[in-house]
């Protein structure tokens, strides 16, 4: 049976939203998950959506893939309205979520992928060829006949990526695709995404991620979402320029009394974030200038904590994020002073 290819106009945005909003109502409360989102993603772009937990990233993705209706505003994907044209749109999109557990445990990898290919009408022969090609590229060819219940989480995530790519969507939505993957598996996923985009300049990827380095490395542009709103968007380079004039210092301290709020209160400290790694508290500070550093060290000394390392470094996307959002991606919404 012959298929029909939709016309593609290179000038048309791959994704466009206007004042998009979503409110969840329950008997007990009302949650504004998204409000006033205006975005325009060009065809062929790899567009990142960054934000802390609960920022509204996944809600945005679910609206764009037609799983959820917006409560206000409009959105189009590949020129089709996500509310009115959702049936036609579903031919053109795909979604892969991190930690995905979908499917049937008794099926083998190839069978599982074949099953999902049939939901798009692919011929079995074409589907099997495409599945084998993608499994090979992602280093999964040898586990193709293993039941999915016996796969590691990394293998399973790669299999989900094969599922997402095999139907050749115009726009693919990757919702934290490398979450909880080891370094090697995450690299394989990123490489495959790049290669897949390289095969056709009109293919578009919308990526949400918790990993700033991943967004910096992969994305052409990113939007930073916080509390349901886009607070900044642009190329990673442009966002990093927002902290170009700041002095960025990484401070390592031995564990001790909470210090983050005290550091944030120092005049000239633009933003501060903290994380604990291998028993050491690591603080990233954005300082207005070098003159602020002695005040920081005085505060640390006053807290009785010992400095084990101090490095001045170049700005990263994470620094820009911390400056814009006020906290790092790793901090929970309510935690004022984790370290």
């Amino acid at each position: 049976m012959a298929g029909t290819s939709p016309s593609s106009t290179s000038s048309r945005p791959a994704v466009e939203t206007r004042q998009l909003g979503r409110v969840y109502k329950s008997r007990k409360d009302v949650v504004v998950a998204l409000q006033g989102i205006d975005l325009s993603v060009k065809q062929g772009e790899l567009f990142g959506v960054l934000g802390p937990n609960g920022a509204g990233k996944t809600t945005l993705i679910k609206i764009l893939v037609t799983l959820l209706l917006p409560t206000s505003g409009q959105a189009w994907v590949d020129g089709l309205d996500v509310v009115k044209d959702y049936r036609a749109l579903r031919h053109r999109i795909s979604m892969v979520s991190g930690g995905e557990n979908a499917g049937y445990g008794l099926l083998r990898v190839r069978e599982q992928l074949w099953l999902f290919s049939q939901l798009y009408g692919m011929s079995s022969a074409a589907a099997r060829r495409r599945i084998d090609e993608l499994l090979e590229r992602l280093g999964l060819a040898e586990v193709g006949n293993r039941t999915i219940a016996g796969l590691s989480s990394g293998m399973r995530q790669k299999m989900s990526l094969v599922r997402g790519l095999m139907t050749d969507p115009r726009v693919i939505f990757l919702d934290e695709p490398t979450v909880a993957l080891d370094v090697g598996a995450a690299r394989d996923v990123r490489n495959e995404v790049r290669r897949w985009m390289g095969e056709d300049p009109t293919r578009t990827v919308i990526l949400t991620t918790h990993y700033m380095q991943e967004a910096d490395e992969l994305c052409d542009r990113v939007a930073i979402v916080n509390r349901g709103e886009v607070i900044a968007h642009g190329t990673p380079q442009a966002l990093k320029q927002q902290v170009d004039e700041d002095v960025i210092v990484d401070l390592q301290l031995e564990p001790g009394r909470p210090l983050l709020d005290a550091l944030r209160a120092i005049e000239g400290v633009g933003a501060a974030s903290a994380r604990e790694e291998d028993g050491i508290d690591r603080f990233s500070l954005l300082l207005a200038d070098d003159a602020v550093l002695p005040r920081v060290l005085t505060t640390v000394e006053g807290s009785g904590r010992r400095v084990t390392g101090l490095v001045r470094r170049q700005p990263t996307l994470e620094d820009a994020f911390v400056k814009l959002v006020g906290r790092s991606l790793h901090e929970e919404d309510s935690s004022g002073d984790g370290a």
Partner: protein
Amino acid sequence: MTQYSPLRIFLKTVVARAYPRVIAIWRQVAWLFFDMAFPIVGSLAMVLVYQGLHAPRQYLGFVVMGGAMLAFWQNVLWSMATQFSWDRGNGTLELYTIAPTTFEAVLLGMAVGSMITTTIRAGVILVAGSLLFGISYASGGALAAIGVFLLTLAALYCLGMLLASLFLFYSREAWHLASALQEPVNFISGLYFPVRALGAYVAGGASLVPMTLGLDAMRQLLLPGTPVFIPVGLETTIVAIQVPVYAILAGLALRFLETRARSEGKLVTRWD
């Protein structure tokens, strides 16, 4: 990217979704054993009760046929109606939803796969029970009984699709509904005795479940002397009408509830 016709996608979805059900026959042999063993044990209990009461011998036939049909009803409740609840929990429902296929095709595939596997189980229960208890059937009614059986299956699985549509929207509540339906329906549909014994009103109400009339018609055809609730022809006609009625209701419910589920966020597993 190639866009295929809705009919092609529908048919391919049916085959694909039936596949895991059918393949489970070979890959889940232990389940197969339990699915056959428990209905036989249940039937055995009823047989012993009837023997203790010195009931007519044909009652043993009622029990064995009811035990075989029980496999279908349990399958409809727990492998059809509740399947979307499982699918939502592990994210599969999201993937079905965003694909260009339809829920009707997914459910029909589920039904076809279930019918194949459950027919094998029910067949084993029927043969084993009949040999074990020495039951004989009227061979003259066999062909007609097979026809009624196929019609009953179609109606029963269309009802299963209707129930599954409820699970698209409701989750735990629908689970309770399935639990609540199991035992009462087992009783009022006359799995272990002729449904006529319940009186016209209860049996008439129980006829909403296609198994009630289908089973009664098959018993009348295969076990002469079965007390007649209503004649076989009328029972068959009612079951035949239930097929399109439940199919259409399932389609309408699926469309309505999908829209509501998208509106209320019931299709997504997380929404941060």
